[in-house]
């Protein structure tokens, strides 16, 4: 039964992926420069959503601090771009703050390879440290979430306060070239878009693989019953830390790409509100589905830019309403709608079969009916 019912489903799934991938990679053919640049930005943000879904949807760990990991990736890339733009001189904001010499930790960012590696590894390292100490001591649920918020406050305060080293509230901007290519050149923008689209597809493939592997099943087991997983012999903290690190790495990657498209990074883009918004994309798209996270990120950001072009003050109001509506009426998000016809069909089949579970043979049948009556059921025959 399963082979025949699964095969067409698999075909449709693959066809869907292929269509989505070609639509993404073909976008430069049918979008103007402005829209393409916007889409590139959304695709970068969708990578954050993928990582968050792996962590929240599959592992059950809610982070409201992904803005920090995103920001670290973005700053790593921005530092490199700024150094290139300054052409061997001290970056402008440093001289305004009275620095005369490039700080030591800025120097290695002159190398693009180092900057990109740092943009990926710094967020992962931070997640490893935070995750190791919290998960190991079994700090979880809402307490972990509060800690991630604290991380955001500490990091943004630090970045705002250390103006001479970070550009303060204004952040880092004013880039010119990457690998000698002018960032303002429309052809370079198309290439950057394609790089982002490929990165998103790769991130999706990675998350899909992780979720479908035995590792992914252990993640879901930990989400459903952390203690139970422990008594089978799994160490939940190891799995949670791993998921947290992968998730942070994806956020860092997204941050690097984001800077290339937007041309600026500042503490306000890694603060509390963006961190919460990232989670909303996943919630609205549908957690634990990956596709939902990507769609949620693209649709929400698309709606945001459309609306805030005409009614900037309405956006925050709307996003709040939307979130409440989704949580109450569509707990599984937009992705839940896709399964709706199948769920209805299953329900119909179940009622047709007359309750279903009869006739399976074996030990466990119908025990539920007797549950609770144990004391009265058995008496000694003696």
């Amino acid at each position, binding site marked *: 039964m399963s082979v025949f019912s699964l095969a067409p489903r698999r075909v449709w799934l693959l066809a869907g992926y292929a269509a989505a991938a070609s639509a993404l990679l073909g976008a430069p053919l049918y979008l103007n420069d402005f829209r393409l640049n916007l889409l590139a930005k959304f695709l970068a943000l969708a990578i954050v959503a993928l990582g968050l879904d792996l962590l929240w949807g599959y592992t059950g760990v809610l982070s409201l601090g992904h803005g920090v990991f995103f920001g670290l990736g973005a700053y790593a890339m921005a530092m490199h771009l700024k150094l290139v733009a300054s052409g061997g001189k001290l970056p402008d904001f440093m001289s305004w703050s009275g620095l005369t010499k490039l700080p030591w930790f800025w120097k290695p960012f002159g190398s693009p390879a180092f900057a990109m590696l740092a943009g990926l590894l710094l967020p992962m390292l931070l997640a490893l440290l935070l995750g190791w100490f919290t998960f190991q001591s079994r700090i979880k649920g809402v307490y972990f979430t509060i800690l991630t918020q604290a991380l955001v406050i500490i990091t943004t305060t630090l970045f705002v306060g250390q103006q001479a080293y970070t550009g303060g509230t204004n952040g880092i901007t004013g880039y010119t070239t990457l690998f000698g290519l002018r960032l303002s050149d429309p052809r370079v923008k198309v290439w950057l878009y394609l790089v982002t689209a490929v990165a998103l597809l790769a991130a999706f493939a990675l998350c899909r693989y992780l979720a479908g592997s035995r590792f992914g099943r252990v993640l879901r087991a930990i989400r*459903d019953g952390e203690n139970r997983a422990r008594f089978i*012999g799994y160490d939940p903290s190891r799995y949670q830390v791993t998921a947290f690190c992968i998730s942070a790495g994806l956020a860092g990657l997204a941050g690097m790409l984001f800077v290339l498209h937007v041309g600026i990074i500042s503490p306000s883009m890694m603060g509390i509100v963006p961190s919460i918004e990232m989670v909303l994309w996943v919630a609205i798209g549908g957690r634990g589905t990956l596709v939902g996270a990507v769609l949620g990120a693209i649709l929400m950001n698309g709606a945001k830019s459309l609306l805030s072009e005409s009614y900037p003050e309405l956006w925050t109001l709307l996003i709040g309403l939307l979130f409440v509506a989704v949580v109450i009426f569509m707990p599984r998000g937009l992705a839940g709608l896709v399964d709706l016809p199948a769920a209805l069909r299953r329900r119909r089949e179940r009622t047709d079969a007359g309750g279903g579970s009869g006739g399976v043979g074996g030990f466990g049948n119908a025990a539920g009916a007797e549950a609770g009556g144990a004391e009265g059921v058995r008496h000694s025959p003696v």
Partner: protein
Amino acid sequence: MRPAQKPEARKASGILRCEEIVVDFDGFKALQGMNFTLRQGELRFLIGPNGAGKTTLLDVICGKVKPASGRVLFRGEIDLTKRREHQIARLGIGRKFQAPSIFPSLTVREHLEIAMRQDRGVFATLRAKMTPADEERIAEQLRMIGLEAKAGRKAGSLSHGEKQWLEIGMMLMQEPEVLLLDEPAAGMTDRETEKTGLLLREIARRRSVVVVEHDMEFVRNFASSVTVMHEGRLLAEGSVDEVQRDERVMEVYLGRRRDADAGRSTA
């Protein structure tokens, strides 16, 4: 039948040995110097009135509760009180709790897959592939617990009894050396209880099993040896008959019931 023996006189080795375990829950001493030895391949029932500390003893063995003092020696050398839960599980000690606890969103087959004896590290599960041998083992286990037809179902949709059976199946996939079961037949019908007992006997042929049980008839039918606990201590040990003849046991436990309603033995 074994000759009656004082527990202290019995050989001190065994696959599992608890020595002078004390558990203190904020002043309430759930265990007060409990001694317990399980031999290789034994099926042992643990009985006693409510609050005697039976479940707490299982909790100590599997690492859920850390004792204030005392040791739990596994294979005569490894002190389990110094290990964490997942390490104890990996050593080969399986635990089934009283209430069925499964992973609602995983399918029946996925439960058996992750429970299967294997390297449980992150990198191992990242690369793990299903071999034909694995498939065969899972299929065999599904047959044994009678859930073949529901292999692809989410476990959250199973009935109470099916969940209990899935859990026992998971424990068997772990291939533990020692199985700790807390009232495995609770909430089951007579017929299911009978089958549970037969399965326990089957399991005990290859492993050592400790069963906490309230139902005396079940104990009488399936126990090879019984340990009676009272107020956090060992009261008596031996065959069902020996234990039932023991005066102290009759006094604190069986006797009261026997006088009250002769023959009715639901403890």
